[in-house]
Protein backbone atom coordinates (compact mmCIF):
# COMPACT_ATOMS: atom_id res chain seq x y z
CA UNK A 1 0.00 0.00 0.00
CA UNK A 2 3.00 2.33 0.39
CA UNK A 3 3.58 2.15 -3.36
CA UNK A 4 -0.03 3.04 -3.98
CA UNK A 5 0.21 5.98 -1.58
CA UNK A 6 3.29 7.26 -3.41
CA UNK A 7 1.48 6.91 -6.72
CA UNK A 8 -1.50 8.87 -5.38
CA UNK A 9 0.76 11.65 -4.10
CA UNK A 10 2.51 11.90 -7.45
CA UNK A 11 -0.62 11.73 -9.58
CA UNK A 12 -2.43 14.38 -7.56
CA UNK A 13 0.65 16.52 -6.91
CA UNK A 14 -0.18 16.54 -3.20
CA UNK A 15 2.11 18.95 -1.41
CA UNK A 16 3.47 18.50 2.09
CA UNK A 17 2.04 14.96 2.15
CA UNK A 18 4.20 11.81 2.56
CA UNK A 19 3.11 8.17 2.09
CA UNK A 20 3.60 7.64 5.84
CA UNK A 21 1.21 10.46 6.66
CA UNK A 22 -1.71 8.83 4.85
CA UNK A 23 -3.51 6.29 7.02
CA UNK A 24 -4.66 3.06 5.36
CA UNK A 25 -8.25 3.78 6.38
CA UNK A 26 -8.13 7.56 6.29
CA UNK A 27 -10.98 8.92 4.14
CA UNK A 28 -9.59 10.33 0.90
CA UNK A 29 -12.45 12.66 0.06
CA UNK A 30 -13.87 14.10 3.27
CA UNK A 31 -12.50 17.27 4.82
CA UNK A 32 -11.14 15.28 7.81
CA UNK A 33 -9.19 13.16 5.35
CA UNK A 34 -7.18 14.29 2.36
CA UNK A 35 -10.00 16.52 1.10
CA UNK A 36 -9.88 15.31 -2.49
CA UNK A 37 -12.60 16.27 -5.00
CA UNK A 38 -14.29 15.01 -8.16
CA UNK A 39 -11.33 15.96 -10.37
CA UNK A 40 -9.02 13.90 -8.17
CA UNK A 41 -11.39 10.96 -8.57
CA UNK A 42 -10.94 11.24 -12.35
CA UNK A 43 -7.16 11.41 -11.86
CA UNK A 44 -7.30 8.25 -9.73
CA UNK A 45 -9.26 6.46 -12.45
CA UNK A 46 -6.37 7.17 -14.85
CA UNK A 47 -3.90 6.04 -12.17
CA UNK A 48 -5.63 2.67 -11.96
CA UNK A 49 -5.52 2.33 -15.72
CA UNK A 50 -1.88 3.39 -16.03
CA UNK A 51 -0.41 1.41 -13.17
CA UNK A 52 -2.76 -1.55 -12.87
CA UNK A 53 -4.50 -1.76 -16.23
CA UNK A 54 -7.90 -1.52 -14.58
CA UNK A 55 -10.61 0.35 -16.48
CA UNK A 56 -13.43 2.12 -14.72
CA UNK A 57 -15.90 3.38 -17.30
CA UNK A 58 -18.56 4.71 -14.97
CA UNK A 59 -17.24 7.60 -12.85
CA UNK A 60 -20.11 7.00 -10.41
CA UNK A 61 -18.23 3.96 -9.14
CA UNK A 62 -15.41 6.25 -7.98
CA UNK A 63 -16.65 7.20 -4.52
CA UNK A 64 -17.02 3.57 -3.44
CA UNK A 65 -13.61 2.45 -4.70
CA UNK A 66 -11.76 5.54 -3.52
CA UNK A 67 -13.01 5.66 0.06
CA UNK A 68 -9.54 5.00 1.43
CA UNK A 69 -6.20 3.60 0.34
CA UNK A 70 -7.32 0.24 1.72
CA UNK A 71 -10.52 0.12 -0.38
CA UNK A 72 -8.48 1.11 -3.42
CA UNK A 73 -5.91 -1.62 -2.75
CA UNK A 74 -8.68 -4.20 -2.29
CA UNK A 75 -10.29 -3.14 -5.54
CA UNK A 76 -6.95 -3.44 -7.34
CA UNK A 77 -6.31 -6.92 -5.93
CA UNK A 78 -9.78 -8.06 -6.93
CA UNK A 79 -9.66 -6.65 -10.45
CA UNK A 80 -6.05 -6.77 -11.56
CA UNK A 81 -5.58 -8.95 -14.60
CA UNK A 82 -2.17 -7.88 -15.85
CA UNK A 83 0.70 -7.00 -13.51
CA UNK A 84 1.92 -3.51 -14.22
Amino acid sequence: MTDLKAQIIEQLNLQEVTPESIGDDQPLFSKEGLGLDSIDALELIVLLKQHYNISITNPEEGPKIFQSVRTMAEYITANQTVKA
Partner: protein
Amino acid sequence: MSIYINGTGCVSPQQTTQGGPLLAALKEYEQVRLAVVDPDYKQWIDVKQIRRMSRVVKMGVAAANLSLEAAGLTAPDAIITGTAYGCLDDTGVFLKKMVEQQEEMLTPTAFIQSTHNTVAGQIALLLQCHGYNNTFVNRGFSFENALLDAMMILDEGGADNILVGGMDEITNYSHQILSRFGIYKKAPVKTMELLNSPDSGTIAGEGAAFMTLSKTKGSLCTTELKGVSTLYKPLWEGEVIGHIVQFLEAHNCTPEDIDLLVTGRNGNIDQDEIYEEVAEALFPEHPEACFKHLCGEYPTAAAFGAWMSNALIAEQRVPDAVMFYGHPPEKINKILLYNHHEGTHHSFVLLTYAE
Protein backbone atom coordinates in the same frame (compact mmCIF):
# COMPACT_ATOMS: atom_id res chain seq x y z
CA MET B 1 -18.08 60.55 -12.81
CA SER B 2 -14.79 59.71 -11.11
CA ILE B 3 -13.26 56.26 -10.86
CA TYR B 4 -10.61 55.73 -8.24
CA ILE B 5 -7.77 53.25 -8.02
CA ASN B 6 -8.08 52.24 -4.38
CA GLY B 7 -5.44 49.56 -4.33
CA THR B 8 -3.01 47.77 -6.61
CA GLY B 9 -0.97 44.59 -6.61
CA CYS B 10 1.73 43.34 -8.91
CA VAL B 11 3.88 40.25 -9.42
CA SER B 12 6.64 40.99 -11.92
CA PRO B 13 10.32 40.49 -12.71
CA GLN B 14 10.91 43.34 -10.23
CA GLN B 15 10.44 43.09 -6.47
CA THR B 16 6.92 44.40 -6.47
CA THR B 17 5.20 42.25 -3.87
CA GLN B 18 7.00 43.45 -0.73
CA GLY B 19 5.63 46.97 -0.46
CA GLY B 20 7.98 49.93 0.09
CA PRO B 21 8.96 52.60 -2.44
CA LEU B 22 8.83 51.82 -6.15
CA LEU B 23 11.98 50.02 -7.35
CA ALA B 24 13.75 50.47 -4.00
CA ALA B 25 15.84 47.46 -4.99
CA LEU B 26 16.01 47.49 -8.78
CA LYS B 27 16.49 44.09 -10.42
CA GLU B 28 18.78 44.26 -13.43
CA TYR B 29 19.06 41.39 -15.89
CA GLU B 30 21.18 40.49 -18.86
CA GLN B 31 18.99 38.05 -20.78
CA VAL B 32 16.19 37.95 -23.33
CA ARG B 33 13.62 36.26 -21.11
CA LEU B 34 12.61 37.74 -17.78
CA ALA B 35 10.77 35.70 -15.17
CA VAL B 36 8.72 37.03 -12.28
CA VAL B 37 10.18 37.14 -8.78
CA ASP B 38 7.91 34.61 -7.07
CA PRO B 39 6.58 35.62 -3.66
CA ASP B 40 5.63 32.91 -1.18
CA TYR B 41 2.25 32.09 -2.71
CA LYS B 42 1.17 30.14 0.36
CA GLN B 43 0.46 33.48 2.02
CA TRP B 44 -2.69 33.60 -0.05
CA ILE B 45 -3.38 30.10 -1.23
CA ASP B 46 -3.94 27.01 0.87
CA VAL B 47 -1.71 23.98 0.08
CA LYS B 48 -4.72 21.92 -0.95
CA GLN B 49 -5.57 24.42 -3.67
CA ILE B 50 -2.08 25.43 -4.78
CA ARG B 51 -1.16 21.97 -6.08
CA ARG B 52 -3.16 22.39 -9.28
CA MET B 53 -2.17 25.97 -10.02
CA SER B 54 0.27 26.90 -12.74
CA ARG B 55 2.44 29.98 -12.39
CA VAL B 56 0.08 32.37 -14.12
CA VAL B 57 -2.75 31.37 -11.81
CA LYS B 58 -0.57 31.85 -8.74
CA MET B 59 0.71 35.20 -9.99
CA GLY B 60 -2.82 36.37 -10.71
CA VAL B 61 -4.21 35.25 -7.37
CA ALA B 62 -1.30 36.90 -5.54
CA ALA B 63 -1.58 40.22 -7.39
CA ALA B 64 -5.36 40.21 -6.90
CA ASN B 65 -4.98 39.65 -3.18
CA LEU B 66 -2.34 42.37 -2.84
CA SER B 67 -4.64 44.77 -4.65
CA LEU B 68 -7.59 44.00 -2.38
CA GLU B 69 -5.41 44.25 0.75
CA ALA B 70 -4.18 47.66 -0.37
CA ALA B 71 -7.77 48.75 -0.91
CA GLY B 72 -8.76 47.40 2.50
CA LEU B 73 -11.27 44.94 1.07
CA THR B 74 -11.83 41.25 1.63
CA ALA B 75 -13.76 40.71 -1.63
CA PRO B 76 -14.81 42.78 -4.65
CA ASP B 77 -18.24 42.86 -6.32
CA ALA B 78 -16.85 41.89 -9.72
CA ILE B 79 -13.66 40.37 -11.16
CA ILE B 80 -12.45 41.15 -14.68
CA THR B 81 -9.20 39.89 -16.14
CA GLY B 82 -7.27 40.30 -19.36
CA THR B 83 -4.83 37.72 -20.67
CA ALA B 84 -3.69 37.27 -24.25
CA TYR B 85 -2.18 33.83 -23.91
CA GLY B 86 -4.23 32.44 -21.04
CA CYS B 87 -2.92 29.45 -19.15
CA LEU B 88 -0.11 28.47 -21.50
CA ASP B 89 1.61 26.06 -19.19
CA ASP B 90 -1.42 23.80 -18.71
CA THR B 91 -2.25 24.10 -22.41
CA GLY B 92 1.26 22.90 -23.25
CA VAL B 93 1.14 20.04 -20.73
CA PHE B 94 -2.16 18.73 -22.12
CA LEU B 95 -1.10 19.16 -25.76
CA LYS B 96 2.18 17.34 -25.20
CA LYS B 97 0.53 14.37 -23.51
CA MET B 98 -2.24 14.29 -26.09
CA VAL B 99 0.26 14.11 -28.94
CA GLU B 100 2.75 11.77 -27.25
CA GLN B 101 0.17 9.40 -25.78
CA GLN B 102 -1.91 9.45 -28.93
CA GLU B 103 -5.02 10.71 -27.15
CA GLU B 104 -4.99 7.94 -24.53
CA MET B 105 -4.66 7.95 -20.72
CA LEU B 106 -5.04 11.68 -20.37
CA THR B 107 -5.90 13.30 -17.06
CA PRO B 108 -8.28 16.22 -16.52
CA THR B 109 -6.29 18.61 -14.36
CA ALA B 110 -4.21 20.33 -17.06
CA PHE B 111 -7.26 20.60 -19.33
CA ILE B 112 -9.54 22.23 -16.79
CA GLN B 113 -6.79 24.61 -15.71
CA SER B 114 -6.01 25.54 -19.31
CA THR B 115 -9.12 27.66 -19.93
CA HIS B 116 -8.45 31.36 -20.25
CA ASN B 117 -10.77 32.27 -17.40
CA THR B 118 -9.04 30.02 -14.87
CA VAL B 119 -7.41 32.94 -13.04
CA ALA B 120 -10.66 34.92 -12.74
CA GLY B 121 -12.54 31.77 -11.75
CA GLN B 122 -9.98 30.78 -9.12
CA ILE B 123 -10.01 34.25 -7.59
CA ALA B 124 -13.81 34.07 -7.37
CA LEU B 125 -13.60 30.62 -5.82
CA LEU B 126 -10.98 31.62 -3.24
CA LEU B 127 -12.82 34.83 -2.31
CA GLN B 128 -16.28 33.25 -2.63
CA CYS B 129 -17.22 36.11 -4.93
CA HIS B 130 -20.51 35.40 -6.73
CA GLY B 131 -20.46 38.65 -8.70
CA TYR B 132 -19.79 39.43 -12.36
CA ASN B 133 -16.75 37.61 -13.70
CA ASN B 134 -15.32 38.14 -17.17
CA THR B 135 -12.09 37.51 -19.09
CA PHE B 136 -10.85 39.36 -22.17
CA VAL B 137 -8.31 37.73 -24.43
CA ASN B 138 -7.67 40.05 -27.35
CA ARG B 139 -3.87 40.24 -27.60
CA GLY B 140 -2.57 43.73 -26.82
CA PHE B 141 -6.10 44.91 -25.91
CA SER B 142 -6.84 42.24 -23.29
CA PHE B 143 -6.12 44.39 -20.24
CA GLU B 144 -7.55 47.55 -21.80
CA ASN B 145 -10.86 45.86 -22.65
CA ALA B 146 -11.07 44.58 -19.07
CA LEU B 147 -10.45 48.11 -17.77
CA LEU B 148 -13.11 49.56 -20.07
CA ASP B 149 -15.64 46.90 -19.04
CA ALA B 150 -15.00 47.74 -15.38
CA MET B 151 -15.42 51.47 -16.00
CA MET B 152 -18.71 50.93 -17.84
CA ILE B 153 -20.06 48.72 -15.04
CA LEU B 154 -19.07 51.23 -12.36
CA ASP B 155 -20.65 53.97 -14.43
CA GLU B 156 -23.92 52.01 -14.61
CA GLY B 157 -23.83 51.48 -10.87
CA GLY B 158 -23.60 47.72 -11.32
CA ALA B 159 -20.88 47.27 -8.70
CA ASP B 160 -19.13 49.22 -5.95
CA ASN B 161 -15.69 47.66 -6.14
CA ILE B 162 -14.24 45.89 -9.15
CA LEU B 163 -11.00 43.96 -9.28
CA VAL B 164 -9.35 44.32 -12.70
CA GLY B 165 -6.10 42.75 -13.79
CA GLY B 166 -3.90 41.73 -16.66
CA MET B 167 -1.54 38.76 -16.73
CA ASP B 168 0.47 36.52 -18.99
CA GLU B 169 3.14 33.89 -18.45
CA ILE B 170 6.08 32.65 -20.50
CA THR B 171 6.62 28.92 -20.81
CA ASN B 172 9.50 27.06 -22.41
CA TYR B 173 7.28 26.18 -25.34
CA SER B 174 5.90 29.66 -25.84
CA HIS B 175 9.33 31.25 -25.60
CA GLN B 176 10.84 28.83 -28.06
CA ILE B 177 7.99 29.28 -30.55
CA LEU B 178 7.82 33.07 -30.22
CA SER B 179 11.60 33.20 -30.64
CA ARG B 180 11.21 31.45 -33.98
CA PHE B 181 9.07 34.38 -35.12
CA GLY B 182 12.15 36.56 -34.55
CA ILE B 183 10.63 38.97 -32.06
CA TYR B 184 13.39 38.80 -29.45
CA LYS B 185 16.98 40.03 -29.43
CA LYS B 186 19.49 37.56 -30.82
CA ALA B 187 21.90 38.06 -27.93
CA PRO B 188 21.36 38.82 -24.23
CA VAL B 189 21.08 42.50 -23.46
CA LYS B 190 21.46 44.43 -20.22
CA THR B 191 17.96 45.53 -19.22
CA MET B 192 19.11 49.04 -18.25
CA GLU B 193 20.52 49.45 -21.75
CA LEU B 194 17.57 47.90 -23.57
CA LEU B 195 15.78 51.14 -24.45
CA ASN B 196 18.78 52.55 -26.30
CA SER B 197 19.44 49.36 -28.17
CA PRO B 198 20.37 50.09 -31.78
CA ASP B 199 18.71 47.06 -33.38
CA SER B 200 15.42 45.23 -33.70
CA GLY B 201 13.94 42.63 -31.34
CA THR B 202 12.94 42.99 -27.70
CA ILE B 203 13.03 40.90 -24.52
CA ALA B 204 10.26 38.60 -23.30
CA GLY B 205 8.51 39.31 -20.04
CA GLU B 206 5.62 38.19 -17.90
CA GLY B 207 3.66 39.18 -14.85
CA ALA B 208 0.31 40.00 -13.29
CA ALA B 209 -0.95 43.41 -12.17
CA PHE B 210 -4.33 44.14 -10.59
CA MET B 211 -6.16 47.23 -9.45
CA THR B 212 -9.26 47.68 -7.34
CA LEU B 213 -11.53 50.32 -8.85
CA SER B 214 -14.41 52.16 -7.25
CA LYS B 215 -16.50 55.30 -7.56
CA THR B 216 -15.83 55.88 -3.87
CA LYS B 217 -12.36 57.16 -3.04
CA GLY B 218 -10.54 54.89 -0.59
CA SER B 219 -8.62 56.29 2.35
CA LEU B 220 -5.22 55.54 0.78
CA CYS B 221 -6.20 56.32 -2.81
CA THR B 222 -4.07 58.82 -4.73
CA THR B 223 -5.13 58.22 -8.31
CA GLU B 224 -8.15 58.68 -10.47
CA LEU B 225 -8.54 56.58 -13.62
CA LYS B 226 -9.89 59.08 -16.14
CA GLY B 227 -10.13 56.97 -19.23
CA VAL B 228 -8.87 54.19 -21.46
CA SER B 229 -8.93 53.96 -25.23
CA THR B 230 -7.68 51.56 -27.87
CA LEU B 231 -6.67 52.05 -31.48
CA TYR B 232 -6.51 49.02 -33.75
CA LYS B 233 -4.09 48.91 -36.68
CA PRO B 234 -3.59 52.64 -37.31
CA LEU B 235 -2.71 53.27 -40.92
CA TRP B 236 0.00 55.82 -40.11
CA GLU B 237 1.41 57.82 -37.19
CA GLY B 238 -0.93 60.74 -37.89
CA GLU B 239 -3.84 58.56 -36.90
CA VAL B 240 -2.23 57.82 -33.54
CA ILE B 241 -1.52 61.49 -32.97
CA GLY B 242 -5.08 62.46 -33.87
CA HIS B 243 -6.47 59.74 -31.63
CA ILE B 244 -4.45 60.99 -28.64
CA VAL B 245 -5.62 64.58 -29.15
CA GLN B 246 -9.25 63.42 -29.29
CA PHE B 247 -8.82 61.14 -26.30
CA LEU B 248 -7.37 63.97 -24.22
CA GLU B 249 -10.06 66.35 -25.42
CA ALA B 250 -12.76 63.91 -24.38
CA HIS B 251 -11.30 64.20 -20.88
CA ASN B 252 -11.05 67.97 -21.02
CA CYS B 253 -7.34 68.28 -21.39
CA THR B 254 -4.60 68.90 -23.93
CA PRO B 255 -1.07 67.54 -24.35
CA GLU B 256 0.23 70.56 -22.37
CA ASP B 257 -1.65 69.34 -19.30
CA ILE B 258 0.25 66.05 -19.23
CA ASP B 259 3.02 66.12 -16.62
CA LEU B 260 4.59 62.81 -17.53
CA LEU B 261 4.33 60.60 -20.58
CA VAL B 262 4.79 56.90 -19.84
CA THR B 263 5.49 54.83 -22.93
CA GLY B 264 5.79 51.15 -23.77
CA ARG B 265 9.21 51.38 -25.48
CA ASN B 266 10.64 47.89 -25.68
CA GLY B 267 14.06 48.40 -27.23
CA ASN B 268 13.01 47.27 -30.68
CA ILE B 269 14.17 50.15 -32.84
CA ASP B 270 11.45 49.55 -35.41
CA GLN B 271 8.62 49.46 -32.90
CA ASP B 272 9.91 52.36 -30.79
CA GLU B 273 9.89 54.76 -33.71
CA ILE B 274 6.19 55.56 -33.26
CA TYR B 275 6.82 56.72 -29.68
CA GLU B 276 9.46 59.13 -31.03
CA GLU B 277 7.05 60.48 -33.61
CA VAL B 278 4.21 60.91 -31.14
CA ALA B 279 6.48 62.57 -28.58
CA GLU B 280 7.88 64.91 -31.21
CA ALA B 281 4.43 65.92 -32.45
CA LEU B 282 2.59 66.29 -29.16
CA PHE B 283 4.99 66.14 -26.24
CA PRO B 284 8.29 67.67 -27.43
CA GLU B 285 9.31 69.11 -24.05
CA HIS B 286 7.63 66.55 -21.84
CA PRO B 287 9.50 64.17 -19.59
CA GLU B 288 9.03 60.54 -20.58
CA ALA B 289 9.25 57.42 -18.46
CA CYS B 290 9.28 53.78 -19.56
CA PHE B 291 8.60 50.36 -18.05
CA LYS B 292 9.29 47.44 -20.40
CA HIS B 293 13.00 47.34 -19.51
CA LEU B 294 11.72 46.38 -16.05
CA CYS B 295 9.03 43.82 -16.92
CA GLY B 296 9.82 42.74 -20.49
CA GLU B 297 7.45 42.72 -23.48
CA TYR B 298 4.18 40.78 -23.34
CA PRO B 299 0.65 41.52 -24.55
CA THR B 300 -0.64 42.61 -21.14
CA ALA B 301 2.48 44.58 -20.14
CA ALA B 302 0.30 47.71 -20.11
CA ALA B 303 -1.12 46.39 -16.82
CA PHE B 304 2.39 46.70 -15.35
CA GLY B 305 2.62 50.17 -16.94
CA ALA B 306 -0.65 51.22 -15.33
CA TRP B 307 0.42 49.76 -12.00
CA MET B 308 3.72 51.68 -12.19
CA SER B 309 2.01 54.91 -13.26
CA ASN B 310 -0.26 54.70 -10.24
CA ALA B 311 2.81 54.27 -8.02
CA LEU B 312 4.50 57.31 -9.61
CA ILE B 313 1.47 59.46 -8.79
CA ALA B 314 1.19 57.98 -5.30
CA GLU B 315 4.85 58.66 -4.49
CA GLN B 316 5.09 61.91 -6.50
CA ARG B 317 8.55 60.72 -7.47
CA VAL B 318 10.05 59.21 -10.61
CA PRO B 319 12.95 56.85 -9.88
CA ASP B 320 16.00 57.33 -12.14
CA ALA B 321 15.59 53.77 -13.41
CA VAL B 322 12.35 54.62 -15.17
CA MET B 323 13.20 58.09 -16.56
CA PHE B 324 13.84 57.97 -20.28
CA TYR B 325 13.82 61.62 -21.39
CA GLY B 326 13.95 64.97 -19.60
CA HIS B 327 13.74 65.64 -15.90
CA PRO B 328 11.23 64.28 -13.42
CA PRO B 329 8.33 66.73 -13.05
CA GLU B 330 8.01 68.50 -9.71
CA LYS B 331 4.36 67.72 -9.46
CA ILE B 332 2.83 64.65 -11.12
CA ASN B 333 -0.77 65.53 -11.66
CA LYS B 334 -1.53 63.84 -14.99
CA ILE B 335 0.06 60.81 -16.63
CA LEU B 336 -0.70 59.58 -20.12
CA LEU B 337 0.27 55.94 -20.55
CA TYR B 338 0.76 55.15 -24.22
CA ASN B 339 1.56 51.58 -25.14
CA HIS B 340 1.52 49.57 -28.30
CA HIS B 341 1.95 45.88 -28.89
CA GLU B 342 3.48 44.72 -32.16
CA GLY B 343 2.57 48.02 -33.82
CA THR B 344 -1.02 46.86 -34.28
CA HIS B 345 -2.56 47.36 -30.83
CA HIS B 346 -2.22 50.90 -29.46
CA SER B 347 -3.70 51.86 -26.11
CA PHE B 348 -3.99 54.96 -24.00
CA VAL B 349 -4.72 55.31 -20.29
CA LEU B 350 -5.15 58.66 -18.57
CA LEU B 351 -4.46 58.86 -14.83
CA THR B 352 -4.67 61.91 -12.60
CA TYR B 353 -3.75 62.74 -9.04
CA ALA B 354 -6.86 62.40 -6.88
CA GLU B 355 -7.39 65.50 -4.74
